[in-house]
């Protein structure tokens, strides 16, 4: 094919170069060159001859179309054959129609030259005169192209400046816009130093602020800002005067009808470093202020102009904050950052407005407002007052995590005027902790910092509430209460603010705080290491006289810096404190420090077409396996148990191919696997009920064991998948009915009554599904119903014999399970970061220890109750409740870190915990299990047990 093209192309080529060199090239011939140039295999010689032909064409042709194409081809040659680019460049330069009457061709050849030069990293050398004369050509599009690309040619800055300035008068709006953009570009280069020129540019741009076109006005705002700032900088003696002038000019654009212009205006306002205070204050009030009127009486400007001036500034920033477009509001919020630094009075008034912005409907704007406040706090201009509290405290308990953490950052820096506000903030933080325990680290850190900044207040608060912290009468510490923990953190911060205050806090408080060492130190990684904290707490708890200066704590700016702990600092603290024992633990502690709270945003992964297709394939495979299960059901009944088990195993192997997260159908695969497991147990159970089977070989407990496994399997099948249809659920319920029946068939089964109760409970579930779904009950279900009815009327369950239940089994027939739609597996992942037998967590014997768990939940609705079960080697078990409402909105995947307290630490050098996450089942009978402080109902475990290693701090 390529060969064919080549030959057809070469023909005209050879004929041209040989016979008719004077004839201009036809467009058709030129078109045929393209493929030759692009194909890499075209021999060098052909390319050179094409190049020569084109060069000749450039010289001879006067036809603009041909010339245009020729230039295009030359440019293609240059880009595809870098070795020829220099030749092309020379040829275009010598023969090009630069001087010809067609500015379009001139511009095109300039483009070719420029792109060749750019590949070499150089600029095209072009004399100013020809560039200017090209710009003055009549074609508007060429003019705008040239102006836009001016920086690609080495044109003198003053020539460019003249051109740009001149063309700001062009009747075509786009030329004006490009000229203004060019002026902005020039301002960045900083080549222009002549004060007259700078002022000229500024004034010219100011004139264009009143242009009719939106795009010109927004370019003008940029240009005014750029040149205005240069003007301010270049006039040291009239700095304020020009800065005010610039500010007022930009303010007048804040009420423009075009959103883009407004955004530019507020962006530009945020860049101004210096403004007179009265002007600033006027921008916050829509009414003309008295102070502005005074300025008028001082004769600074004529009266009639004054009115216009004041009304153009009045309330501009307020308007910006209440704009319809969030882009404008955000930009306005941002502009407050620098402006609040200029004047404290302005900052106070601005804060009132910014507080109100926390009600904005856009999260971007709210965040920007908080960021601005943080900025103000950093510069000491954040004066919080009582009127702000409602809004401010609201953000502490906001449902959005980022908002909460931004608010806490501000709190860490804020200075509060009185104890009432301080108490409100502390209460707000504690409330936030109760509502959002996953924020613990952040909240502890905030409490610690505000405590440190307001030591006196802390002392008076702690002394009032100290009895809350004290252990209850039976000697049990209430440290699992969030409030107590928060108060402890607050209390221990006090000695760091003023040394003489330490004595006011009861020393035992510090020893209580030691019990929360892990949690507190996780929160205070920016201030001190765990070792330092421990030493600090021990010291405080021992002696009432204590000097904060002994500790070399980092005065890190908590809001503005990323937490970063160099090892040397922690060594330094250790040296000062001088506890040699802790050096040994160095490795472990730094590991703990490096672990920080992870705050991960939920990311919804979009479903892509091919995924759907793959999903479909997986579902088909699953249904195939499920249909085979139905086929082997008669084998189970006939007692071919071994064969059945072998077949089920083979099915499992088939499934193994799909086990990894197969493109969104993982749920279906997991379900099928679970179904196979249930079948396996069912087959094993059934073995015991076969008439021919004699049970002498198996132990008496074996059936109970298998039945127990079956129950667990069925429970998981029912609870761990979401997206089941009513019919599918019905099928599972039938299996549960079957397992209950099987239990009841057994003469020797002990908990007869419980099984009966479960049977009737399950049946009522089945009934409700039947009713809501208008589904006909199967033979088996209706027979179970009849039998239960019979038992109910006969008075007591004892009268019915296992025989009746055995009869029921005959009515059961397995239906084929058909998967359709999307099934999601309810599951969880639990990781304890940086923990293994080599790197154990540290604990103090008989005191609680915090275990940081990184938990990922999949498809768990918030209404479910989750528990963490922690079991020690001696099988003592502790349950910790996990309130799902606290960990973000309900979504497919939730990821968070939670520090789980473990209370019963043994008196041992080290021990291991097995942690597992379980979900409480609603449908299970309450009376089944009853553990003190634990879940009321049976748990369905959602993940593998995880071993956690702990070792004592010696």
């Amino acid at each position: 094919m390529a060969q064919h093209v080549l030959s057809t192309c070469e023909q005209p080529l050879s004929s041209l170069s040989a016979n008719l060199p004077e004839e201009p090239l036809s467009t058709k011939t030129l078109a045929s060159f393209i493929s030759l140039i692009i194909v890499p295999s075209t021999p060098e010689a052909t390319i050179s001859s094409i190049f020569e032909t084109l060069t000749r064409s450039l010289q001879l042709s006067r036809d603009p179309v041909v010339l245009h194409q020729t230039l295009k081809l030359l440019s293609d040659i240059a880009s595809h054959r870098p070795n020829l680019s220099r030749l092309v460049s020379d040829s275009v330069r010598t023969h090009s129609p630069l001087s010809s009457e067609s500015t379009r061709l001139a511009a095109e050849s300039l483009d070719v030259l420029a792109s060749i030069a750019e590949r070499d990293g150089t600029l095209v050398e072009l004399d100013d005169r020809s560039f200017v004369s090209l710009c003055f050509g009549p074609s508007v599009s060429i003019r705008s192209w040239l102006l836009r690309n001016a920086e690609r040619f080495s044109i003198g800055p003053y020539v460019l400046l003249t051109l740009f300035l001149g063309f700001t008068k062009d009747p075509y709006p786009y030329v004006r816009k490009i000229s203004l953009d060019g002026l902005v570009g020039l301002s960045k280069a900083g080549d222009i130093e002549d004060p007259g020129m700078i002022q000229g540019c500024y004034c010219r741009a100011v004139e264009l602020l009143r242009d009719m076109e939106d795009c010109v006005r927004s370019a003008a705002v940029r240009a005014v800002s750029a040149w205005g700032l240069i003007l301010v900088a270049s006039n040291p003696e009239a700095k304020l005067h020009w800065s005010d002038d610039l500010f007022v000019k930009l303010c007048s654009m804040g009420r423009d009808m075009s959103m883009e212009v407004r955004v530019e205006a507020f962006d530009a306002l945020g860049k101004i470093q210096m403004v007179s205070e009265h002007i600033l204050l006027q921008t916050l009030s829509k009414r003309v202020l008295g102070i502005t009127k005074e300025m008028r009486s001082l004769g600074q400007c004529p009266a009639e102009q004054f009115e216009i001036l004041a009304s153009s500034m009045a309330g501009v920033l307020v308007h910006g904050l209440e704009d319809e477009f969030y882009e404008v509001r955000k930009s306005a919020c941002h502009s407050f950052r620098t402006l609040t630094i200029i004047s404290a009075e302005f900052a106070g008034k601005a804060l009132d407005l910014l507080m109100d912005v926390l009600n904005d409907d856009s999260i971007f704007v709210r965040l920007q407002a908080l960021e601005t406040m943080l900025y103000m706090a950093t510069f000491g201009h954040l004066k919080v007052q009582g009127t702000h509290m409602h809004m401010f405290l609201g953000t502490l308990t906001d449902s959005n995590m980022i908002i909460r953490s931004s608010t806490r950052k501000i709190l860490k820096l804020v200075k509060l005027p009185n104890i009432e506000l301080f108490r409100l903030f502390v209460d707000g933080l504690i409330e936030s902790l109760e509502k959002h325990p996953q924020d613990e680290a952040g909240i502890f850190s905030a409490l610690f910092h505000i405590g440190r900044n307001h030591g006196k207040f802390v002392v008076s608060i702690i002394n009032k509430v100290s009895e809350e912290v004290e252990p209850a009468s039976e000697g049990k510490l209430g440290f699992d209460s969030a409030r107590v923990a928060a108060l402890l953190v607050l209390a221990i911060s006090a000695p760091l603010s003023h040394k003489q205050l330490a004595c006011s806090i009861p020393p035992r408080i510090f020893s209580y705080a030691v019990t929360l060492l892990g949690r507190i130190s996780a929160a205070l990684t920016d201030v001190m290491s765990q070792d330092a904290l421990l030493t600090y707490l021990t010291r405080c708890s021992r002696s009432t006289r204590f000097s904060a200066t002994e500790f070399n704590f980092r005065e890190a700016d908590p809001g503005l810096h990323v937490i970063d702990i160099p090892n040397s600092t922690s060594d330094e603290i250790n040296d000062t404190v001088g506890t040699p024992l802790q050096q040994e633990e160095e490795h472990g502690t730094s590991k703990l420090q490096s672990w920080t709270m992870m705050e991960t945003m939920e990311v919804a992964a979009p479903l892509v077409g091919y995924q759907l297709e793959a999903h479909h394939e997986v579902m088909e495979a699953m249904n195939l396996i499920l249909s085979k299960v139905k086929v082997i059901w008669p084998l189970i009944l006939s007692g071919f148990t071994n064969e059945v088990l072998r077949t089920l195993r083979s099915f499992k192997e088939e499934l193994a191919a799909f086990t990894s997260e197969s493109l969104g159908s993982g749920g279906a695969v997991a379900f099928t696997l679970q179904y196979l497991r249930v079948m396996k147990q069912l087959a094993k159970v059934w073995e015991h009920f076969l008439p021919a089977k004699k049970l002498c070989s198996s132990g008496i407990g074996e059936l109970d064991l298998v039945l127990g496994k079956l129950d667990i399997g069925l429970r998981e099948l029912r609870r761990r998948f979401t997206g089941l249809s009513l019919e599918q659920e019905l099928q599972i319920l039938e299996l549960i009915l079957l397992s209950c029946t099987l239990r009841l068939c057994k003469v020797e089964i002990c908990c007869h009554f419980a099984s009966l109760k479960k049977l009737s409970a399950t049946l009522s579930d089945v009934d409700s599904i039947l009713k809501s779904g208008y589904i006909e009950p199967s033979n088996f279900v209706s027979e179970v119903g009849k039998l239960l009815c019979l038992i109910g009327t006969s008075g007591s369950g004892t009268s019915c014999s296992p025989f009746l239940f055995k009869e029921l089994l005959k009515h059961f027939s397995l239906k084929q399970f058909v998967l359709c739609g999307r099934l999601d597996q309810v599951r969880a992942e639990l990781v304890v970061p940086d923990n293994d037998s080599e790197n154990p967590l540290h604990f103090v014997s008989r005191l609680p220890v915090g275990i940081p768990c990184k938990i990922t939940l999949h498809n768990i609705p918030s209404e479910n109750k989750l528990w963490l079960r922690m079991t020690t080697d001696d099988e003592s078990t502790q349950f910790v409740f996990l309130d799902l409402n606290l960990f973000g909105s309900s979504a497919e995947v939730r990821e968070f870190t939670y520090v789980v307290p473990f209370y019963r630490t043994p008196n041992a050098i080290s021990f291991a915990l097995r942690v597992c996450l379980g979900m409480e089942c609603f449908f299970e009978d309450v009376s089944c299990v009853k553990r003190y402080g634990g879940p009321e109902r049976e748990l369905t475990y959602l993940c593998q047990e995880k071993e956690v290693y702990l070792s004592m701090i010696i």
Partner: protein
Amino acid sequence: MAIECLVLGAGQEVGKSCVVVSMNGKRIMFDCGMDMAYHDHRRHPDFSRLSQSGDFDAALTCIVITHFHLDHIGALPYFTEVCGYRGPIYMTYPTKALAPAMLEDYRKVMVERRGEEEQFTSEHIVECMKKVIAVDLKQTVQVDKELQIRAYYAGHVLGAAMFYAKVGDTGIVYTGDYNMTPDRHLGAAQIDRLQLDLLITESTYATTIRDSKYSREREFLKAVHNCVAGGGKVLIPTFALGRAQELCILLEDYWERVNLKVPIYFSSGLTMQANTYYQMLISWTSQKVKETYSTRNAFDFKHVLNFDRSMIAAPGPCVLFATPGWISGGFSLEVFKQWSPSEMNLVTLPGYCAAGTIGHKLMSGKPTKIDLDKDTQLDVRCQIHQLSFSPHTDAKGIMDLVKFLSPKHVILVHGEKPKMATLKGRIYSELGIQCDDPANNETVCIPSTHYVKAGASNTFIRSSLNPNFKFSRCSSEDESDSCLKDRKSMPWLQVTDERTVEGILVEEKSKKAKVANQDELLLMLGEEKHEVQFAYCCPINIGNLEETKSKDLTSSNNVPCISDMCSWLRMLYIKLSDQLSGGNVQDFGEHIQVESVHVSICQKDRCPYRISDSSQNKSEAVFVCCTWSVADEKLAWKIISILENFNSGTY
């Protein structure tokens, strides 16, 4: 050509809006409202002023309705069905959709409750609506060959629009009611920069300047939150459309953020119906609602439930939106009776309540007892929160709009007389725009723009294609707007592009007007070029000159110079170059040239340009003759004054 503006309603009052504008032979009626305060003929505009014969079809080109409020549309069915107007009527789609319900509601209240004679029937409303042509925003509608109208977004209520009307070269804008600041559910008014002869704007709040809406929102949320947190019930009486949706969006947002679980109820059918309209008319709502629409319809309120009577006495906190807004009766009154005796509860009141309603009584002070009727008295112990949300623009918004549009003339309607007068003054003094506030049934005539079409000569077209800009320095004193600028500051660069300046409009009798380049003008007219030169001949005291000369030259040259013309000229040259620092002074020996000013020693005894001055001794005086062309007049007088200063002896 003139625009005649006849105000039939809302002239110096807030009532029935109706303005009839005649321009270039077209007559448009903007709004056709009714005044609910009257129950006689005054409730309608005086239509008889339009046409004595009653042939309204001939008298009016079309009617334009801005929005569905009764004071803007209330008289429409009466005018079309009873008075018999059959011409076109224009309004936006939402207005057309919502107006029938409003009119029907009003008709029912009039007839069924007050037992009045009905002005129009339900059929009339239906028939009237059939005549309506619905328009979209920014859609240019060609009413007839010459008249164009176009709707622009006005905020205020759902579907409210400002209308631009254009006949020939005359363009006007009628705003209706509008809002320049957005709220939670509607955007701010938005309009293009147009060439306008007249802007007719509402002026309900002609002197009010409102603070940020954020503080109002915060107060409201705080009051509601505190009430429900204390277990109280909140009653928000509103009308079906507008405020209810705005407040509900606000509450929903807050509920979401603060994670409140307290139920929010909507009382009954009409409000739910209204929500449906909002859900459908998303393109007429605020930017925020439009942006979130792809994920969620903001009017699908998540927390909002339906309320029924049995829940009035139910325990526990809740928030209830109930109609009507002024607690003048209906469901809101029923609930109010039940809830007002408890201190825990809260009632919010809208910014304005009609006199005589319970809402009005609550607003004026805080009564503890309210008489429902003769026999029943109600204990009011609940908290009361007044909302000051308003869908009208404030004075600043009106000024901003007028400033943005910069029309040649402004007419204020729909406001209170004294306040309008204040605003009128501000518009004139701050913006320099003529402004009127006519009373009802007054007519205002204002001049209108008329453009002449002109051809352009080829030379002119060619010359205007090529840029031809010039830089010049001009003193900052000329600049009008920068008063912060130091007046002594240096002259600054000014850019002019002369392509358009070069054009000359030639209008010859019985010929089409033409724009020509200045170079070809003489050719076109077949005339020769004449130049005007000014001349002035003034005496200079030789004695002074000598003195100056010796003073200047003694240091360099002790020999006194011959007093001849050349040396005098030389003296003058030195003096002028010295004084005119920026000018370009050239010495040509015979004369001195500064730009076009030509200075020479006059040798004539009788120079026609000489102003004879007998006091001067002729022998001691030298006459200097100056000529210049008109362009350099300023410069010439400056030079002359320098020359004459030789006489005064100060040098």
